[in-house]
Protein backbone atom coordinates (compact mmCIF):
# COMPACT_ATOMS: atom_id res chain seq x y z
CA UNK A 1 0.00 0.00 0.00
CA UNK A 2 1.61 3.29 -1.07
CA UNK A 3 -0.16 5.39 1.57
CA UNK A 4 -1.34 4.22 4.98
CA UNK A 5 -3.35 6.08 7.60
CA UNK A 6 -3.73 5.65 11.33
CA UNK A 7 -5.47 7.13 14.32
CA UNK A 8 -5.23 6.66 18.05
CA UNK A 9 -6.63 8.09 21.24
CA UNK A 10 -4.12 6.43 23.55
CA UNK A 11 -1.97 8.57 25.82
CA UNK A 12 1.72 9.14 25.18
CA UNK A 13 3.92 7.17 24.76
CA UNK A 14 1.58 4.28 23.83
CA UNK A 15 -0.04 6.50 21.21
CA UNK A 16 3.06 6.54 19.02
CA UNK A 17 3.48 2.76 19.14
CA UNK A 18 -0.21 2.41 18.29
CA UNK A 19 0.15 4.67 15.26
CA UNK A 20 3.32 2.90 14.16
CA UNK A 21 1.60 -0.49 14.30
CA UNK A 22 -0.89 0.82 11.73
CA UNK A 23 1.86 1.92 9.31
CA UNK A 24 1.54 -0.88 6.77
CA UNK A 25 3.34 0.79 3.88
CA UNK A 26 6.84 -0.11 5.04
CA UNK A 27 9.28 2.53 6.23
CA UNK A 28 7.69 5.84 5.18
CA UNK A 29 9.48 8.66 3.38
CA UNK A 30 7.21 11.23 5.03
CA UNK A 31 4.71 11.27 7.89
CA UNK A 32 2.03 13.92 8.39
CA UNK A 33 0.04 13.97 11.61
CA UNK A 34 -2.63 16.12 13.22
CA UNK A 35 -3.06 16.04 16.97
CA UNK A 36 -5.56 17.22 19.50
CA UNK A 37 -4.08 20.00 21.61
CA UNK A 38 -4.59 17.77 24.66
CA UNK A 39 -1.30 16.04 23.81
CA UNK A 40 1.89 17.59 25.14
CA UNK A 41 3.35 19.11 21.97
CA UNK A 42 7.10 18.78 22.52
CA UNK A 43 6.89 15.18 23.72
CA UNK A 44 4.54 14.25 20.88
CA UNK A 45 6.73 15.74 18.17
CA UNK A 46 9.90 14.24 19.60
CA UNK A 47 8.38 10.78 19.95
CA UNK A 48 6.82 10.84 16.48
CA UNK A 49 10.14 11.70 14.85
CA UNK A 50 11.96 9.09 16.94
CA UNK A 51 9.49 6.43 15.81
CA UNK A 52 10.20 7.19 12.14
CA UNK A 53 13.86 8.18 12.06
CA UNK A 54 14.22 7.90 8.28
CA UNK A 55 11.19 10.04 7.47
CA UNK A 56 10.31 13.72 7.29
CA UNK A 57 7.78 13.96 10.13
CA UNK A 58 5.59 17.06 10.31
CA UNK A 59 2.24 17.96 11.82
CA UNK A 60 0.23 20.42 13.80
CA UNK A 61 -2.28 20.72 16.61
CA UNK A 62 -5.92 20.64 15.61
CA UNK A 63 -9.48 21.41 16.58
CA UNK A 64 -10.84 18.00 15.60
CA UNK A 65 -9.45 15.23 13.44
CA UNK A 66 -10.58 13.13 10.48
CA UNK A 67 -9.53 9.55 9.70
CA UNK A 68 -11.01 6.15 8.90
CA UNK A 69 -14.21 7.76 7.62
CA UNK A 70 -14.89 9.47 10.94
CA UNK A 71 -14.72 12.94 12.41
CA UNK A 72 -13.11 12.74 15.84
CA UNK A 73 -11.76 14.87 18.64
CA UNK A 74 -9.11 14.22 21.26
CA UNK A 75 -7.14 11.98 18.89
CA UNK A 76 -4.04 11.92 16.73
CA UNK A 77 -4.34 10.98 13.06
CA UNK A 78 -1.42 10.23 10.77
CA UNK A 79 -0.64 9.58 7.13
CA UNK A 80 2.39 7.57 6.06
CA UNK A 81 3.83 8.06 2.58
CA UNK A 82 5.77 5.16 1.13
CA UNK A 83 8.39 5.45 -1.62
CA UNK A 84 5.82 4.44 -4.24
CA UNK A 85 4.17 7.83 -3.75
CA UNK A 86 6.85 10.16 -2.42
CA UNK A 87 10.19 10.09 -4.22
CA UNK A 88 11.75 12.72 -2.01
CA UNK A 89 10.73 15.00 0.87
CA UNK A 90 12.16 17.83 2.90
CA UNK A 91 10.75 19.92 5.71
CA UNK A 92 11.64 23.41 6.91
CA UNK A 93 10.40 25.67 9.70
CA UNK A 94 9.64 29.33 9.08
CA UNK A 95 9.86 30.91 12.51
CA UNK A 96 9.14 34.32 13.96
CA UNK A 97 6.06 34.92 11.83
CA UNK A 98 5.33 38.18 13.63
CA UNK A 99 8.16 39.77 11.70
CA UNK A 100 8.45 39.30 7.94
CA UNK A 101 8.21 35.52 7.29
CA UNK A 102 11.65 34.36 6.17
CA UNK A 103 10.44 32.01 3.47
CA UNK A 104 13.51 32.65 1.31
CA UNK A 105 15.73 30.96 3.90
CA UNK A 106 13.50 27.88 3.91
CA UNK A 107 13.54 27.83 0.10
CA UNK A 108 17.33 28.05 0.10
CA UNK A 109 17.42 24.90 2.22
CA UNK A 110 14.97 23.20 -0.15
CA UNK A 111 17.25 24.17 -3.04
CA UNK A 112 20.18 22.54 -1.29
CA UNK A 113 18.12 19.38 -0.72
CA UNK A 114 16.50 19.07 -4.15
CA UNK A 115 19.51 20.49 -6.03
CA UNK A 116 17.17 22.84 -7.90
CA UNK A 117 15.83 26.30 -7.03
CA UNK A 118 12.27 26.02 -5.73
CA UNK A 119 11.25 28.53 -8.41
CA UNK A 120 12.32 26.04 -11.09
CA UNK A 121 10.80 22.81 -9.72
CA UNK A 122 8.29 20.99 -11.90
CA UNK A 123 4.97 22.16 -10.46
CA UNK A 124 3.20 19.01 -11.64
CA UNK A 125 5.54 16.68 -9.74
CA UNK A 126 6.16 18.74 -6.62
CA UNK A 127 3.67 19.91 -4.04
CA UNK A 128 4.07 21.65 -0.72
CA UNK A 129 2.20 21.34 2.54
CA UNK A 130 1.99 24.38 4.77
CA UNK A 131 0.94 24.14 8.40
CA UNK A 132 0.91 27.43 10.26
CA UNK A 133 0.27 28.71 13.77
CA UNK A 134 -3.46 29.38 13.63
CA UNK A 135 -3.34 32.26 16.09
CA UNK A 136 -0.49 34.13 14.42
CA UNK A 137 -2.67 36.29 12.18
CA UNK A 138 0.16 36.11 9.66
CA UNK A 139 -1.17 33.51 7.27
CA UNK A 140 -1.80 35.95 4.42
CA UNK A 141 1.73 37.35 4.48
CA UNK A 142 3.19 33.86 4.70
CA UNK A 143 1.23 32.71 1.67
CA UNK A 144 2.17 35.85 -0.26
CA UNK A 145 5.84 35.18 0.42
CA UNK A 146 5.52 31.52 -0.58
CA UNK A 147 3.59 32.44 -3.72
CA UNK A 148 6.17 35.04 -4.67
CA UNK A 149 9.05 32.59 -4.38
CA UNK A 150 7.58 29.69 -6.29
CA UNK A 151 4.72 28.48 -8.46
CA UNK A 152 4.75 25.12 -6.69
CA UNK A 153 1.36 24.76 -5.01
CA UNK A 154 1.48 24.90 -1.23
CA UNK A 155 -1.75 23.82 0.45
CA UNK A 156 -2.55 23.32 4.08
CA UNK A 157 -4.17 24.71 7.14
CA UNK A 158 -3.85 26.85 10.20
CA UNK A 159 -3.30 24.83 13.36
CA UNK A 160 -6.05 24.66 15.98
CA UNK A 161 -6.26 24.13 19.72
CA UNK A 162 -9.68 22.52 20.22
CA UNK A 163 -11.39 25.93 20.27
CA UNK A 164 -9.50 27.19 23.30
CA UNK A 165 -7.85 29.95 21.22
CA UNK A 166 -4.79 30.05 23.48
CA UNK A 167 -1.84 28.35 21.75
CA UNK A 168 -1.47 26.33 18.58
CA UNK A 169 1.59 24.33 17.55
CA UNK A 170 3.26 23.13 14.39
CA UNK A 171 5.57 20.12 14.50
CA UNK A 172 8.68 19.36 12.46
CA UNK A 173 11.55 16.93 12.80
CA UNK A 174 11.08 16.30 16.50
CA UNK A 175 10.24 19.78 17.75
CA UNK A 176 7.09 21.79 18.38
CA UNK A 177 6.88 25.46 17.44
CA UNK A 178 4.58 28.42 17.97
CA UNK A 179 4.60 31.65 15.95
CA UNK A 180 5.89 29.50 13.11
CA UNK A 181 4.98 27.58 9.99
CA UNK A 182 6.16 24.21 8.76
CA UNK A 183 6.70 23.67 5.06
CA UNK A 184 6.88 20.13 3.69
CA UNK A 185 7.98 19.86 0.08
CA UNK A 186 7.28 16.56 -1.67
CA UNK A 187 8.43 15.19 -5.01
CA UNK A 188 5.71 12.78 -6.08
CA UNK A 189 5.89 9.80 -8.37
CA UNK A 190 2.40 10.09 -9.83
CA UNK A 191 1.33 13.65 -9.19
CA UNK A 192 -1.58 15.17 -7.33
CA UNK A 193 -4.72 17.26 -7.56
CA UNK A 194 -6.09 19.99 -5.33
CA UNK A 195 -9.79 20.30 -4.60
CA UNK A 196 -11.09 23.43 -2.91
CA UNK A 197 -14.75 23.03 -2.14
CA UNK A 198 -17.15 25.23 -0.23
CA UNK A 199 -20.88 25.06 0.23
CA UNK A 200 -22.23 28.40 -0.88
CA UNK A 201 -24.16 29.93 -3.73
CA UNK A 202 -24.12 33.53 -4.88
CA UNK A 203 -26.98 35.79 -3.79
CA UNK A 204 -26.34 38.30 -6.57
CA UNK A 205 -25.55 41.02 -4.02
CA UNK A 206 -22.10 42.59 -3.86
CA UNK A 207 -20.16 44.67 -1.38
CA UNK A 208 -17.15 46.84 -2.24
CA UNK A 209 -14.61 47.22 0.57
CA UNK A 210 -14.02 50.96 0.62
CA UNK A 211 -12.21 51.32 3.97
CA UNK A 212 -10.25 48.54 5.65
CA UNK A 213 -7.63 47.89 8.29
CA UNK A 214 -5.81 45.01 6.59
CA UNK A 215 -3.54 44.17 9.51
CA UNK A 216 -6.53 43.75 11.84
CA UNK A 217 -8.58 41.93 9.18
CA UNK A 218 -11.21 44.59 9.74
CA UNK A 219 -13.57 46.21 7.28
CA UNK A 220 -14.69 49.66 8.36
CA UNK A 221 -16.81 50.49 5.33
CA UNK A 222 -18.50 48.72 2.47
CA UNK A 223 -19.74 50.94 -0.34
CA UNK A 224 -18.77 54.00 1.78
CA UNK A 225 -21.22 53.02 4.50
CA UNK A 226 -20.47 51.56 7.94
CA UNK A 227 -19.62 47.92 7.30
CA UNK A 228 -22.27 46.48 9.61
CA UNK A 229 -25.05 48.54 8.07
CA UNK A 230 -24.04 47.71 4.50
CA UNK A 231 -23.66 44.01 5.26
CA UNK A 232 -26.99 43.86 7.10
CA UNK A 233 -28.77 45.58 4.23
CA UNK A 234 -27.22 43.13 1.77
CA UNK A 235 -28.47 40.08 3.69
CA UNK A 236 -31.81 41.73 4.48
CA UNK A 237 -31.72 42.05 8.26
CA UNK A 238 -31.47 44.94 10.73
CA UNK A 239 -27.86 45.78 11.73
CA UNK A 240 -28.31 44.33 15.22
CA UNK A 241 -29.00 40.92 13.64
CA UNK A 242 -26.00 40.99 11.31
CA UNK A 243 -23.75 38.79 13.45
CA UNK A 244 -26.36 36.03 13.51
CA UNK A 245 -26.02 35.79 9.71
CA UNK A 246 -22.22 35.49 9.55
CA UNK A 247 -22.00 31.70 9.33
CA UNK A 248 -24.63 31.36 6.62
CA UNK A 249 -23.71 34.51 4.71
CA UNK A 250 -19.95 35.00 4.48
CA UNK A 251 -18.45 36.98 1.61
CA UNK A 252 -16.64 35.60 -1.41
CA UNK A 253 -13.81 37.02 -3.49
CA UNK A 254 -14.49 35.59 -6.91
CA UNK A 255 -11.45 33.99 -8.53
CA UNK A 256 -12.12 32.41 -11.93
CA UNK A 257 -15.76 31.88 -10.99
CA UNK A 258 -15.03 30.30 -7.60
CA UNK A 259 -15.52 32.09 -4.29
CA UNK A 260 -12.50 32.43 -2.02
CA UNK A 261 -14.50 32.74 1.18
CA UNK A 262 -13.86 35.52 3.69
CA UNK A 263 -15.79 34.71 6.88
CA UNK A 264 -16.95 37.45 9.22
CA UNK A 265 -15.86 36.82 12.80
CA UNK A 266 -17.47 39.55 14.91
CA UNK A 267 -18.94 43.02 14.95
CA UNK A 268 -16.65 45.70 16.34
CA UNK A 269 -18.61 48.93 16.69
CA UNK A 270 -19.79 49.68 13.17
CA UNK A 271 -17.05 47.60 11.57
CA UNK A 272 -16.71 43.85 10.96
CA UNK A 273 -13.65 41.77 11.82
CA UNK A 274 -13.03 38.83 9.50
CA UNK A 275 -11.10 35.55 9.83
CA UNK A 276 -8.95 36.58 6.88
CA UNK A 277 -7.86 39.77 5.21
CA UNK A 278 -9.97 41.85 2.89
CA UNK A 279 -8.00 44.35 0.82
CA UNK A 280 -9.14 47.86 0.06
CA UNK A 281 -11.08 47.91 -3.20
CA UNK A 282 -12.00 44.22 -3.16
CA UNK A 283 -15.37 43.47 -4.73
CA UNK A 284 -17.06 40.70 -2.74
CA UNK A 285 -20.09 38.56 -3.39
CA UNK A 286 -22.57 37.96 -0.59
CA UNK A 287 -22.86 34.17 -0.27
CA UNK A 288 -25.58 31.89 1.02
CA UNK A 289 -24.90 28.52 2.62
CA UNK A 290 -25.87 25.24 0.98
CA UNK A 291 -25.55 21.60 2.07
CA UNK A 292 -21.98 20.79 3.20
CA UNK A 293 -22.37 17.01 3.10
CA UNK A 294 -24.08 16.82 -0.28
CA UNK A 295 -21.74 19.37 -1.88
CA UNK A 296 -18.57 17.74 -0.55
CA UNK A 297 -19.70 14.25 -1.49
CA UNK A 298 -20.46 15.40 -5.03
CA UNK A 299 -17.12 17.20 -5.29
CA UNK A 300 -15.19 14.14 -4.12
CA UNK A 301 -17.10 11.85 -6.48
CA UNK A 302 -16.38 14.16 -9.43
CA UNK A 303 -12.72 14.28 -8.48
CA UNK A 304 -12.47 10.50 -8.12
CA UNK A 305 -14.08 10.02 -11.51
CA UNK A 306 -11.64 12.48 -13.06
CA UNK A 307 -8.57 10.97 -11.40
CA UNK A 308 -9.47 7.30 -11.67
CA UNK A 309 -7.46 6.20 -8.66
CA UNK A 310 -6.70 8.10 -5.47
CA UNK A 311 -3.86 6.81 -3.31
CA UNK A 312 -4.86 9.08 -0.47
CA UNK A 313 -6.04 12.54 0.51
CA UNK A 314 -5.61 15.15 3.19
CA UNK A 315 -8.64 17.29 4.06
CA UNK A 316 -7.97 20.72 5.54
CA UNK A 317 -11.43 21.33 6.91
CA UNK A 318 -12.49 24.67 8.32
CA UNK A 319 -13.53 24.63 11.97
CA UNK A 320 -16.58 26.72 11.02
CA UNK A 321 -17.76 23.86 8.83
CA UNK A 322 -17.07 21.41 11.65
CA UNK A 323 -19.10 23.55 14.07
CA UNK A 324 -21.97 23.67 11.59
CA UNK A 325 -21.83 19.90 11.10
CA UNK A 326 -21.77 19.35 14.87
CA UNK A 327 -24.74 21.68 15.23
CA UNK A 328 -26.61 19.78 12.53
CA UNK A 329 -25.47 16.43 14.03
CA UNK A 330 -24.06 15.42 10.63
CA UNK A 331 -20.42 14.72 11.50
CA UNK A 332 -20.93 11.01 10.83
CA UNK A 333 -22.31 11.76 7.38
CA UNK A 334 -19.39 14.02 6.57
CA UNK A 335 -16.78 11.53 7.77
CA UNK A 336 -18.42 8.76 5.77
CA UNK A 337 -17.70 10.65 2.54
CA UNK A 338 -14.09 9.52 2.94
CA UNK A 339 -14.81 5.88 3.77
CA UNK A 340 -12.73 3.56 1.65
CA UNK A 341 -10.14 6.22 0.84
CA UNK A 342 -6.88 6.50 2.78
CA UNK A 343 -7.72 9.91 4.19
CA UNK A 344 -6.83 12.12 7.11
CA UNK A 345 -7.71 15.68 7.94
CA UNK A 346 -8.20 18.19 10.68
CA UNK A 347 -10.44 21.07 11.62
CA UNK A 348 -8.41 24.18 10.86
CA UNK A 349 -8.41 27.79 11.91
CA UNK A 350 -8.23 28.62 8.19
CA UNK A 351 -7.10 26.95 5.01
CA UNK A 352 -4.15 27.78 2.81
CA UNK A 353 -4.36 27.64 -0.98
CA UNK A 354 -2.78 30.49 -2.98
CA UNK A 355 -3.85 32.62 -0.02
CA UNK A 356 -5.58 32.31 3.34
CA UNK A 357 -9.22 31.27 3.10
CA UNK A 358 -12.16 30.25 5.28
CA UNK A 359 -15.12 27.86 5.32
CA UNK A 360 -13.70 25.40 2.80
CA UNK A 361 -12.54 21.87 2.56
CA UNK A 362 -9.21 22.29 0.85
CA UNK A 363 -8.15 18.80 -0.13
CA UNK A 364 -4.84 17.51 -1.43
CA UNK A 365 -5.32 14.28 -3.36
CA UNK A 366 -2.46 11.97 -4.25
CA UNK A 367 -2.55 9.90 -7.43
Amino acid at each position, binding site marked *: MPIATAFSTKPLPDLVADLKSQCICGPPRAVVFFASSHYEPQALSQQMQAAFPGACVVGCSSAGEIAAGRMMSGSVVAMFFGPDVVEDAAAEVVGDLESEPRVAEAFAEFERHFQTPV*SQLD*IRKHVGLVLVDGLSGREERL*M*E*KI*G*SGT*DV*FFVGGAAGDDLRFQTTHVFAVGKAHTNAAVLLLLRLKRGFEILKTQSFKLTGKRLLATEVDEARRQVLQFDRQPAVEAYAAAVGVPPEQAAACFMRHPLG*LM*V*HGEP*FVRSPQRVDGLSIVFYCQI*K*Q*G*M*QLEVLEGTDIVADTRAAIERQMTAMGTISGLIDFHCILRTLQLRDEKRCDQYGAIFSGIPAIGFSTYGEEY*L*GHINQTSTILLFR
Partner: protein
Amino acid sequence: MAGQIKRMIDAIIEQRAKGDPLIRIMTKSKLLLRGVDPDRFNRNSADDPQVVATIRAIAAELGTPLELGEEKG
Protein backbone atom coordinates in the same frame (compact mmCIF):
# COMPACT_ATOMS: atom_id res chain seq x y z
CA MET B 1 -2.33 58.98 -18.94
CA ALA B 2 -4.06 55.64 -19.22
CA GLY B 3 -3.31 51.99 -19.71
CA GLN B 4 -0.18 51.68 -17.58
CA ILE B 5 -1.85 49.39 -15.02
CA LYS B 6 -3.05 46.99 -17.71
CA ARG B 7 0.46 46.86 -19.23
CA MET B 8 2.04 46.22 -15.84
CA ILE B 9 -0.38 43.40 -15.03
CA ASP B 10 0.12 41.80 -18.42
CA ALA B 11 3.89 42.00 -17.99
CA ILE B 12 3.75 40.29 -14.59
CA ILE B 13 1.52 37.49 -15.85
CA GLU B 14 3.52 36.87 -19.02
CA GLN B 15 6.91 36.92 -17.31
CA ARG B 16 5.75 34.62 -14.57
CA ALA B 17 3.81 32.17 -16.76
CA LYS B 18 6.31 31.92 -19.62
CA GLY B 19 3.51 30.45 -21.71
CA ASP B 20 2.27 27.92 -19.12
CA PRO B 21 -1.54 28.32 -18.94
CA LEU B 22 -1.69 26.83 -15.43
CA ILE B 23 0.79 29.39 -14.10
CA ARG B 24 -1.04 32.15 -15.98
CA ILE B 25 -4.26 31.32 -14.10
CA MET B 26 -2.34 30.92 -10.85
CA THR B 27 -0.66 34.31 -11.21
CA LYS B 28 -3.98 36.03 -11.93
CA SER B 29 -5.37 34.36 -8.81
CA LYS B 30 -2.45 35.58 -6.72
CA LEU B 31 -3.00 39.13 -7.98
CA LEU B 32 -6.70 38.92 -7.11
CA LEU B 33 -5.92 37.73 -3.60
CA ARG B 34 -3.53 40.67 -3.23
CA GLY B 35 -6.33 43.06 -4.16
CA VAL B 36 -5.58 43.60 -7.86
CA ASP B 37 -8.26 42.30 -10.21
CA PRO B 38 -6.66 41.99 -13.66
CA ASP B 39 -10.04 42.04 -15.37
CA ARG B 40 -10.92 45.44 -13.92
CA PHE B 41 -8.26 47.21 -15.96
CA ASN B 42 -7.99 47.83 -19.70
CA ARG B 43 -6.04 50.06 -22.08
CA ASN B 44 -8.24 53.01 -21.15
CA SER B 45 -8.01 52.64 -17.35
CA ALA B 46 -6.61 55.73 -15.62
CA ASP B 47 -3.10 55.43 -14.18
CA ASP B 48 -4.14 55.55 -10.51
CA PRO B 49 -0.84 56.18 -8.65
CA GLN B 50 -1.94 54.10 -5.65
CA VAL B 51 -2.71 51.06 -7.81
CA VAL B 52 0.51 51.55 -9.78
CA ALA B 53 2.49 51.58 -6.52
CA THR B 54 0.73 48.43 -5.29
CA ILE B 55 1.50 46.57 -8.51
CA ARG B 56 5.12 47.73 -8.48
CA ALA B 57 5.49 46.28 -4.97
CA ILE B 58 3.92 42.98 -6.03
CA ALA B 59 6.12 42.81 -9.11
CA ALA B 60 9.22 43.39 -7.01
CA GLU B 61 8.29 40.50 -4.71
CA LEU B 62 7.46 38.23 -7.62
CA GLY B 63 10.78 39.06 -9.26
CA THR B 64 9.15 40.25 -12.47
CA PRO B 65 10.81 43.44 -13.78
CA LEU B 66 8.23 45.82 -15.20
CA GLU B 67 10.25 48.22 -17.30
CA LEU B 68 9.72 46.33 -20.56
CA GLY B 69 5.98 45.99 -20.04
CA GLU B 70 5.60 49.65 -19.15
CA GLU B 71 7.69 50.90 -22.05
CA LYS B 72 5.65 48.93 -24.59
CA GLY B 73 2.70 51.29 -24.06
